[in-house]
């Protein structure tokens, strides 16, 4: 052909498939809207190969979307969807270059409708909060040692057994009044409201536990019911909630006087622990013993003090004092006696000398003699003797006998 191309501008070289695909991928990935989307649809072709990644197709009546969720994201999901489930999937849109397919790289899914429920939850929460139903000053104290506990829960759930076991272990002194209700489904809110009312007015418990085991957000929905929330607020008895798992928060939890993370925890928060009570009791008993011992030793001390005072004033003491006095007197008497004897002895000596001077012995020594008859009678006159009469003559160194051979006057 002679005809030259009109447009001889350099013709762009053909895209390679890879380049085009990469370009499209970059376009998609630079679109912020596509990188943060929620998509609702029905699950089909769900597969989970050994890699742990999830592959499925999300479809509705007129279109379908390939989806993949990597293993690490799979591990974070609270539930696993199945074919036919209506779910909402969050993720980002990109292209699987090898397959030439755009797809949703999912990081989160939830049951369809949950989003709407969550909006309703937020609306009700904001409204009740604005009314002041969650105010801390509304919260009533939970009695430390309840005599009677009302329980609003399903009669068939594991939650009830968990709570009863906990109460048996911790505080079997309490009496439990069950108010069996459905805890999910359309009937549940009305039954829960009635149970709260009946418990309060028929059983007069000290505290009410409202509980349900774990479940999906729909399962727990009865506890996000406005009527239930208002019934809790109106209850004359303090209410403890224990709904679902630790991460589940319901409107009932916000209105309740105390929120427990689980039914078991609710039973724990409602009761003292028997082991702690034993410790308290031991402590009281110790105080009692110490007080009485102190009182006794105080009395004993006072008694001892009195005894000391009594002894200081006792007759024994007086006797001892007197006895000492007597000893003193005796000592003085002895001294006097000694003195007296000494005095007497010297007087005696003087007298003796005086007497010696008067004694007949000294007269005899001067040459006189004493003449006595046989009767020992001293002869003073001649007339006392007769001739031939034997007489005794005493001289200074002895005596001798004589006979009277004459007499004259």
């Amino acid at each position, binding site marked *: 052909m002679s005809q030259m191309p009109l447009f001889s501008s350099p013709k762009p070289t053909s895209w390679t498939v890879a380049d085009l695909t990469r370009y499209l991928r970059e376009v998609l990935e630079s679109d912020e809207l596509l990188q943060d989307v929620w998509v609702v649809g029905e699950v089909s072709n769900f597969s989970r190969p050994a890699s742990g990644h999830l592959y499925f197709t999300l479809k509705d009546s007129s279109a379908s979307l390939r989806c993949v969720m990597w293993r690490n994201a799979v591990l974070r999901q609270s539930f696993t969807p199945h074919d036919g489930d209506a779910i909402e999937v969050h993720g980002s849109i990109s292209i699987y270059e090898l397959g030439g397919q755009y797809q949703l790289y999912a990081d989160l899914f939830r049951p369809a409708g949950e989003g709407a429920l969550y909006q309703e939850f937020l609306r009700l929460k904001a409204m009740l909060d604005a009314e002041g139903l969650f105010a801390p000053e509304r919260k009533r104290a939970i009695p430390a040692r309840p005599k009677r506990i009302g329980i609003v829960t399903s009669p068939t759930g594991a939650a009830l*057994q968990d709570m*009863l076991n906990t109460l048996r272990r911790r505080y079997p002194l309490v009496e439990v009044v*069950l108010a069996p209700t459905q805890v999910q489904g359309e009937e549940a809110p009305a039954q829960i409201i009635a149970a709260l009312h009946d418990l309060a007015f*028929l059983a007069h418990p000290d505290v009410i536990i409202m509980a349900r085991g774990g479940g999906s957000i729909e399962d727990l929905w009865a506890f996000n019911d406005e009527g239930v929330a208002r019934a809790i607020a109106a209850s004359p008895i303090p209410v403890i909630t224990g709904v679902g798992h630790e991460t589940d928060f319901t409107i009932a939890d916000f209105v309740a006087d105390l929120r427990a993370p689980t039914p078991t925890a609710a039973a724990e928060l409602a009761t003292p622990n028997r082991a702690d009570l034993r410790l308290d*009791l031991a402590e*009281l008993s110790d105080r*009692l013993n110490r007080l009485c011992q102190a009182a006794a030793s105080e*009395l004993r001390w006072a008694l001892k003090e009195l005894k000391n005072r009594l002894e200081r004033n006792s007759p024994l003491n007086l006797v001892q004092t007197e006895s000492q006095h007597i000893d003193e007197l005796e000592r003085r008497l002895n001294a006097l006696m000694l003195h007296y004897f000494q005095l007497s002895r010297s007087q005696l000596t003087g007298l003796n000398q005086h007497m010696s001077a008067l004694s007949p012995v000294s007269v005899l020594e001067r040459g006189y003699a004493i003449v006595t008859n046989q009767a020992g009678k001293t002869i003073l006159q001649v007339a006392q003797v007769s001739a031939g009469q034997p007489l005794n003559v005493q001289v200074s160194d002895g005596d001798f006998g004589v006979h009277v051979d004459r007499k004259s006057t």
Partner: protein
Amino acid sequence: MPPAKPKTKTELPDVNELSYEQALAELETIVTSLESARLPLNETMALYERGQALTRHCADLLDKAELKIKKLSGESLEDVPSGQE
């Protein structure tokens, strides 16, 4: 302060008739009154004996108590036999 001056034993209820809460409350009252007032020896001894009996009663209750379960049924409370809750 104790609500009532300790009286002779005959005026007090039998310890074994008291609930745990009643027994514990009386025990606390006794300890408080012993702590706050000097009482005659015979009263101190009487309170001590009463306090010991209360302590034993409380400990017994804690050891032997079995959970009592009732069920709200219409307008009435029904006993739920143990093991059938």
